[in-house]
């Protein structure tokens, strides 16, 4: 075959829109770095400050361990209670939002509710609930329940929308009541993913519950913020180390839980 053979168009189409998009993003990043006056010098100075700060945190001071333990327990309680309620509420909400099984008049309000739960960061919910029910763990629990619904219900709905409808058709053809259709043809297809989402959210709630205390919604975050303000950096370090330990333990537990349901 010579080069003069039939000239075919390239089989790989060029997506000019995507290319233009990448270029635009790159240009905007350059512009934004300039506009925000971010320079290498400032990062160097910052690193120096950071090193000094880190130095003052060592050695960690575990003198007030009783307070630390109390706070950790409260944090774990907030995380577990809010995850349990959040996931329990997410089940029906997520189901109602699944467009392949439910009629439009039900999916729209459910999706709107999920969107509202998703639209605010937990800290904003926490500020609202502290105003509503006062300082303390109750505000934290309510906060994280809503945060959980926003995340888990949405993923539940998406998981249900991805199932194969063939078994559903078979159950309906056999005259099964709607609840039996759910239990036998929908649940087996999504259970594993539900377990995954629920453990992930519990993990996320544990991390979030260390933070919402900063605005007074209970947990270890309040103590952390107070220690910062009193320049008690040794204690700050002790708190941070215990949070890291807590998250690692929860990671381990999450893996075990997923192993059981595999």
């Amino acid at each position, binding site marked *: 075959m010579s080069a003069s053979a039939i000239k075919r168009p390239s089989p790989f189409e060029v997506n000019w829109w995507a290319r233009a998009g990448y270029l635009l993003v790159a240009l905007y990043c350059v512009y934004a770095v300039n506009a925000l006056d971010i320079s290498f010098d400032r990062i160097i100075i910052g690193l120096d400050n950071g090193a000094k700060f880190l130095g003052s945190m060592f050695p960690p001071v575990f003198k007030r361990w009783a307070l630390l333990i109390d706070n950790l327990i409260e944090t774990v309680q907030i995380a577990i209670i809010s995850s349990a309620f959040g996931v329990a509420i997410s089940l029906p909400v997520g189901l109602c939002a699944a467009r392949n099984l439910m009629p439009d008049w039900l999916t729209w309000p459910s999706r709107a509710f999920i969107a509202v739960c998703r639209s605010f960061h937990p800290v904003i919910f926490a500020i609202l609930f502290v105003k509503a029910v006062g300082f303390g763990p109750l505000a934290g629990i309510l906060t994280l329940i809503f945060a959980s619904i926003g995340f888990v219900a949405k993923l539940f709905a998406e998981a249900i929308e991805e199932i194969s409808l063939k078994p559903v058709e078979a159950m309906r053809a*056999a*005259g099964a009541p709607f609840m039996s259709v759910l239990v036998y043809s929908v649940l087996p297809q999504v259970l594993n993913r539900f377990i995954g989402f629920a453990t992930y959210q519990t993990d996320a709630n544990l991390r979030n519950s260390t933070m919402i205390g900063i605005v007074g919604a209970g947990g270890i975050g309040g103590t952390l913020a107070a220690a910062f303000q009193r320049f008690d950096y040794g204690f700050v370090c002790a708190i941070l180390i215990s949070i890291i330990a807590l998250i690692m333990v929860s990671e381990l537990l999450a893996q075990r839980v997923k192993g059981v349901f595999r």
Partner: protein
Amino acid sequence: MSHASDPKKAGAHGDKSLVVEHLRKEYVRGKAVLKDISFTVSGQSTTAIIGPSGTGKSTLLRCINRLIEPTAGRILVSGEDVCALKGTALREARRRIGMVFQEYNLVERLSVMENVLCGRLGYISPWRAWLRKFPQEDIDRAFDLLDMVGLADFARARADELSGGQRQRVGIARAVMQEPHILLADEPTSSLDPKTSVEIMELLRAVAEKRDIPVLVNIHDVTLGRRFSDRVIGMCKGEVLFDDVPSALQDDHLKQIYGGEEWLQ
């Protein structure tokens, strides 16, 4: 099988019969997929429905158990008009209509036994179904049916461990578990190899004989349909062009049903 040789007369028995009268289905207004379909099957019989793809064979079967809503006409299952039913009454009518699917429609993550017992879901409450509290006689019957389809050793295996032919056997056991008055099979052999296809057709025929019920089979394979049926309904463009015993089906009919003739050589 004797009464099936005179299809027009069937239906007089009353129980375990299917009567379709002037059935019409339009997905889009004015464009009928099924135009005025009428036929009757009853008692122990196997009816093969043949015709080109997209001619409305699947729609026809799904109209019978109302998975698809008919536009007009009457459908009587053992004398009861299923088109008039709603809610619980419709569910109860569906229990009497077994269905076997082209792609088996099993729940992959459930065991073979659980899949077979799905045929009883219409008879027990969701709560009991969830707890797997099926009546003992249902479980005994499920074991008997698994024996019949040759899968007794697989009761606790997960459905996704099975081969295509085995899955279709489970699908048939599930449908029979409903104690249906009629059995609908929508292309039950299309995803299977020729040998397995024959075995599945034999099984469907055995079900018709053992349970004394009419079986309706949508089928692409004309030879297979002819071989295992005692009545053939040939459809084209939503109309019935042929309705008689298999031996009466000539090449001329096939030309009419499928169009063209080169493929007949």
